[in-house]
C-alpha cells in the first residue's frame, strides 16, 4: 500500500535527477538539470524552501546527506565535473568545499557509514572513483582510484559498518576494527567491490559480472544484523540483480535475477529495514519488490504518479523470466 502524503512542487526549471530525504525524513534535497540544488522542509506534509543552492555549472545528478552527527551537510555532484559539499551554518546553507578532481561528469556521491568519519565516495564518467575524507579544519584528503570503470562509473554505494566476525558489541573503549567496503557500478557492465587495505589504499576486491550493459545503480542493503550481505544492482539491460554473500571471508557473491524489465532501470533503493527494494525504470515506473518466504522476489506494488496499487506485473515478470 503506497499513498502519497506530500507532493512537493520543486519549481525546478528542468528535469529533476535526484531527491533524497535527510536522516530524519524531515528535509528533502532535490537536484536538477537546472543546475540547482534545493532543500525543503517537508515536516507535517508541508513544503518550505530552505535553500536554493547555486554553484554547479551543469546538471546536478545526485545529492547525499551526511549523517547528522556531523551537522547539516549535503554533497552534490554534477556534470560540471565537480562535487560540492554544502553545509548549514547558523541557519544558512553555504558551499563548504568544492572537489574538482575529476575529468568528466561526476555521476554519484555516497557518504560512508558515519562510524568511519566523514568520507565521501564519488564516481565519475572519467572512470575514476575518488574518496574524500574530512581531516578536520576544513581540510579534505583525496584518494583516487583511477580506471575503476572504463568510460565511467555510474554509481557508488557503501557497505554498512559491520565488524567482521561479530554481531555483538565490541568491547567498549576499543575502536571497532571496521573493514571499509563499497560497491561501484559502471559502463563496463561491471559491479566492483572495493576494500580499504591496511595501508589505507583502496583495492579492487571483487568483480561481479552478470549485466550485459551499463550498470546504472548499485545499492548495498542496510545491515539488519544478519551475516548475509546483499547488494542490488540495475542496468541499462533492464535487469535487476540481487547479489548475496553469506560468508564474508570467502567473499563469494551469487546473483539472483529479480526481474528483467523492458527498459533501462535507473535506480534501486533499499528500505531502511532492507526488506523492500524500490526499482525505478526508464518507463517512469517505480515498483516495490519484496522477497517472499521461499526466496522469490515478488512485486508488491506499482508506484505510478504516487498512485499505489497492486499491479499485475508479478505475472508479467514471471513470463519475462521464462
Amino acid at each position: 500500500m503506497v499513498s502519497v502524503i506530500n507532493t512537493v512542487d520543486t519549481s525546478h526549471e528542468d528535469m529533476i535527477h535526484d531527491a533524497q530525504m535527510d536522516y530524519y525524513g524531515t528535509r528533502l534535497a532535490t537536484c536538477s538539470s537546472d543546475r540547482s540544488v534545493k532543500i525543503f522542509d517537508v515536516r507535517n506534509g508541508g513544503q518550505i524552501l530552505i535553500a536554493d543552492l547555486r554553484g554547479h555549472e551543469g546538471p546536478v545528478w545526485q545529492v547525499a546527506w551526511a549523517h547528522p552527527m556531523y551537522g547539516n551537510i549535503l554533497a552534490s555532484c554534477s556534470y560540471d565535473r565537480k562535487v560540492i559539499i554544502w553545509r548549514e551554518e547558523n541557519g544558512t546553507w553555504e558551499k563548504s568545499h568544492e572537489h574538482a578532481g575529476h575529468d568528466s561528469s561526476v555521476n554519484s556521491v555516497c557518504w560512508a557509514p558515519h562510524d568511519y568519519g566523514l568520507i565521501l565516495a564519488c564516481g565519475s564518467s572519467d572512470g575514476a572513483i575518488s574518496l574524500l575524507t574530512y581531516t578536520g579544519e576544513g581540510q579534505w584528503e583525496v584518494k583516487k582510484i583511477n580506471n575503476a570503470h572504463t568510460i565511467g562509473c555510474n554509481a557508488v554505494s557503501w557497505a554498512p559498518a559491520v565488524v567482521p566476525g561479530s554481531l555483538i558489541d565490541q568491547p567498549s573503549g576499543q575502536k571497532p576494527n571496521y573493514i571499509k567496503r563499497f560497491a561501484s557500478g559502471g559502463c563496463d557492465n561491471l559491479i566492483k567491490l572495493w576494500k580499504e587495505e591496511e595501508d589505507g589504499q583502496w583495492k579492487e576486491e571483487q568483480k561481479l559480472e552478470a549485466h550485459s550493459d551499463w550498470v546504472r545503480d548499485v545499492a548495498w542493503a542496510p545491515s539488519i544484523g544478519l551475516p548475509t550481505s546483499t547488494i542490488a544492482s540495475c542496468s541499462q539491460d533492464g535487469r535487476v540483480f540481487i547479489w548475496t554473500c553469506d560468508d564474508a571471508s570467502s567473499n563469494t557473491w551469487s546473483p539472483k535475477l529479480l526481474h528483467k524489465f523492458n527498459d533501462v532501470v535507473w535506480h534501486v533503493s533499499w528500505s531502511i529495514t532492507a526488506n523492500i527494494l524500490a526499482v525505478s525504470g526508464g518507463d517512469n515506473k517505480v515498483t516495490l519488490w519484496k522477497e517472499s518466504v521461499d526466496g522469490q522476489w515478488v512485486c508488491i506494488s506499482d508506484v505510478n504518479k504516487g498512485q499505489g496499487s497492486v499491479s499485475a506485473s508479478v505475472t508479467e515478470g514471471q513470463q519475462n523470466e521464462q
Partner: protein
Amino acid sequence: MKLKEVDRTAMQAWSPAQNHPIYLATGTSAQQLDATFSTNASLEIFELDLSDPSLDMKSCATFSSSHRYHKLIWGPYKMDSKGDVSGVLIAGGENGNIILYDPSKIIAGDKEVVIAQNDKHTGPVRALDVNIFQTNLVASGANESEIYIWDLNNFATPMTPGAKTQPPEDISCIAWNRQVQHILASASPSGRATVWDLRKNEPIIKVSDHSNRMHCSGLAWHPDVATQMVLASEDDRLPVIQMWDLRFASSPLRVLENHARGILAIAWSMADPELLLSCGKDAKILCSNPNTGEVLYELPTNTQWCFDIQWCPRNPAVLSAASFDGRISVYSIMGGSTDGLRQKQVDKLSSSFGNLDPFGTGQPLPPLQIPQQTAQHSIVLPLKKPPKWIRRPVGASFSFGGKLVTFENVRMPSHQGAEQQQQQQHHVFISQVVTEKEFLSRSDQLQQAVQSQGFISYCQKKIDASQTEFEKNVWSFLKVNFEDDSRGKYLELLGYRKEDLGKKHIKEEKEESEFLPSSGGTFNISVSGDIDGLITQALLTGNFESAVDLCLHDNRMADAIILAIAGGQELLARTQKKYFAKSQSKITRLITAVVMKNWKEIVESCDLKNWREALAAVLTYAKPDEFSALCDLLGTRLENEGDSLLQTQACLCYICAGNVEKLVACWTKAQDGSHPLSLQDLIEKVVILRKAVQLTQAMDTSTVGVLLAAKMSQYANLLAAQGSIAAALAFLPDNTNQPNIMQLRDRLCRAQGEPVAGHESPKIPYEKQQLPKGRPGPVAGHHQMPRVQTQQYYPHGENPPPPGFIMHGNVNPNAAGQLPTSPGHMHTQVPPYPQPQRPQNGWNDPPALNRVPKKKKMPENFMPPVPITSPIMNPLGDPQSQMLQQQPSAPVPLSSQSSFPQPHLPGGQPFHGVQQPLGQTGMPPSFSKPNIEGAPGAPIGNTFQHVQSLPTKKITKKPIPDEHLILKTTFEDLIQRCLSSATDPQTKRKLDDASKRLEFLYDKLREQTLSPTITSGLHNIARSIETRNYSEGLTMHTHIVSTSNFSETSAFMPVLKVVLTQANKLGV
C-alpha cells in the same frame, strides 16, 4: 578519450544493440591502399572489452576475403540472442555485389561464412541500410541510380522503390526513415536527395538546394522526428551539414558550418538526437547538436582524415572512426583522462612512423596539411551538454519512516520545443509505504489495550484466537496476572483446583475435631519403666528432647513430632530431619520440601516431566521473595533441556516469574523472530507481562534488559518502517542508554516533525565531531554505566503517578532482597539525552494519574500457606497485621515536591533523597509483622529469623496512626501553601528542607514514642494552622518546647517553628 585502436584501413560495422558482448567488424576498404599497397582483403571481428585497460582490441576472427568493401553494415536480422554473435553482416563490394556473411560462423572459424551473394548492382555498392522496423529489409545503392530493396528471406530477387531517377547518377547514401518504416531516402554526389515511399513505389520528394555545390557524402534521418534529415557535403567549397524538414523542403532548415573542409561522413546518435558526429577533410571529428548547430565536442584526434564514423549502437558513449592513416580508433565522448593511455599511443605512433616508407621511396605519406599536434591536453573534456542517456529521468528512494520519495520526468520528444519542457511541472512525491497491515493492526490493538488498561479482555481475546494449545496456555497465564488470586488461578491452569484442596483440608480438620472432645475423660500418667513410662518421665521434667528421642527410638513418629512441636522450633527441625532420614516413602521428598520449605530442592531435582507439579508446588508454597527465583530456576531447567516442547513450556515459568528478559530469550530461541508477525507475537506477550509485573509486583519495570531492549528496538524499527512513528516511540524502551536505542529515539522524535526551537544545535546522541565542547554523548563505550543510575522517575514532572506506583524498586520485597537499597541511588540522573515530547500512554510510560490505581494483589496480600509446623492451625495472622490491612491504602499526600524533580525551583537541588515516608501504602503487612509464630508451649521468642532479616529498615516503617495522620496532612499542606506563595529561592529551600526534617516527627508518630503532652500540643498547633492563626500556633510551639524534653523534640520542633513563621510572614 581514445579507448581502443586497431591498425586497419577498413570499413567498420558495430554489432547490433541487442548483441552482447560488443563486436566491431572491419572489412578492408576498397577505396584506400595502405603503405604496403597490398590488395589482400579480409573481414575481421574484434571484441570491445572495456574492462581491459589496454588500447588493443581483441581480435576474435579473421576471414580472408576475395572482396574489398565500400560499405559494411551489421543487421540484427534473425537475432535470437542465444549465442554471443548473431545477426548478419552485409557488405557492399566493388563490382556490384552484395555479400551476406554470418558473423557467428566467422567467429567460429568456419570456412563457409557467406550466407548469400548477389551481384545485381552495377558498379560499387556504396550505400547500404537495414530497415529498423523490418530487419529483413535492406536497401542498397550503386551506380546508375540503382536502388534495390532486398528481402533477406528471399535474397535472389530484389525490389525497387520506384523508377530510377534521371539523369543516372551514383547513389552515395541510402537511409531508412527512423519513424516510418516504408520511407527511404537516397542521396548522390550530385547533391540531390530523393525520398521514396515504398507503398506508392515512387519518389515522393526531391531535396536540393540548387547550389550544385552539395556533394552528398552523408545522409541521416532524425532519430525522433520523421520529417527531418541531414545531408552532409564533401565539397570543400561547401563543407556544410544541411538540416532539412520535408514540411518545408524548399530550403534547408538549418545549415551547420563547423567544418573547414569537406565532410566525409556523418552519424546521428540513436541514443540522443542532439548528437550528430561528423568528420571531414579538416581532420576534425565534431559532435554537434543538429537542432541548434552548436558544436558540443571536438574529439582529440591526430591529424588524419577520417572517412567513416559510427556510433556504437549498444554503448551510446562509444564511437569508432576509421582514418586514412590506416587506423580505426574507438573513442568515448564522455571525456576523461588519457594519462594512462597516452604513453602507449606515442610509442605506437613512433613505431608506425618507422614503417611509413617500406619501399624506400623517400616519400612519406602526405602529412595532410595540419602539423602534428602531439602535445595534447592530457585531460579531455566531455561533451558540453550532458548526453541524454546519463540524465536520470526517474528515481525512488526510501527514507526513514517507510517513506518513499519519487520523482519522474515525463519524457518529452525534444522537437516539441523548450517551452513545453518548461511548462512541465517538476514535482517530488513523498509516499507512505505500508506493507505489513496485519502487523500494524495488531500493534494497534496492543497499544489500545495498554492505553485502556483492558488487559484481561485483551488476553481473553488472544486466548479465543489462539491457534495452538501452547499459545492458549501462554495467554491464559498472562491473563491470570491481572486477576485476583493469581497464584490460585495459575494452579487451576496447571490442573490443581484450590477449592478441591480446600475441601479436603476442611475434611481433615473436621476429622481432627472429632477426636478432640474425647480428651475430656481422665487418664493415667504412667511413670513405669517401659518406654511409655520413660517418656512420661521426660515430659514431666520438661525434657522434650529426651522424650522425642525416646519416641523416635520406639519408631513412634507421630508422638515424636507432636512432642517436638511443643519442644520448640529447634527441636522440631531436628526431629523432622530424623524423621525424613528414616522415612522412605515416595512422596517423602515432596513432604520434605514442603516442611523444610526447601523448594529449591524440588525445582532443582524433580523430573522435568513433572514440571507442572513442581510449578504448582512453588505456586502454592513459595514465599514472594523466592517465588520468582524458583519459577526462573524451573524455567531455566526446562529451557536447557533438549526437548523443544519443554523449552517452550519454560516460557510459562518465566511468565509466572514475571521475568521478561528470560521470556524474551527463551522465546527468541524457539521462534523465528525475523518476521514482523512473529516479533509481534513476542512483543504482545512481553508488553502484557511487563504491565502485569508493574501492576502486581510494583517491581521496577523500568529496567530493560539487553535482550529485551534489542527486541523492543527491533520492533520499534519495524513500526517506524511502516510509518508508525508515534507507536514506535511508545514502544521504544526509554530508560536505557544503549546507543542504538537512543539514536533511534532521537531519530523518531525528530521524524515526528516537532519543531526544533530556533537553531539550537540539534541534540543528537552522537559525539559531535566538529563541536568539541558538546557534552559527551552516549557513544559506544558509555554503556557500561551502572544501569540503576539511568532509571528515571518522572522527568516530565507534570504527571506524578499515584502513590501506589511511586515506590517501585523500593517497596517490593523481592527487589529489596536483591538490590541493596541505598537511599538516593535510585534517583534520577539528568537524562543524558533529551526527551522531547513523548506520546501519551506509552507502554512503558509511568502510569498517568487518570489511571485508576489497581489494588495490588501480588504479593503484598499474598500469604503463603503457613508452613506445616503444627497440626493445630494458627489463627490467621495476628491482630497487628490485621489492623494494618485495614489501613486505608488511600494515598497519603506524598509530598510530590520531594519525590519529583521540580524544574521550576531556580537553583534548588532538583532532586531530593528518597528518605520519604515510603512505607505507608506499599508496605506488605505480611512482612511488617510475621504471622508465623512458634507453636504454643514452645519457648518464647522463637520467630523465624529469615523474616526479620529480610526487609530493610525503611520497609518496616509503620503507618502513622490514624488519629495523628491529621498532623502530617496539616503540616504538609501548610508547607505546600507556603511554597506556592514564596518567591525567593532561599525561602523555598528552607521550606523544602523543613518538609524533609518533619519526617523525624512522622517517624516518632509511627513509633508512638512521643509523650501525650507533646502530641496533644501538636494537635493544638494543627488546629491553629487550620484557622490560620499562626501566632497562636507559635505560642503553643513555645509552650511545648519549654515544657518538654529537648532531646525528644529537637529533631523537628525548630523546623516546625520555621514553617509557622514563614506561614505567618507569607499570610497563606
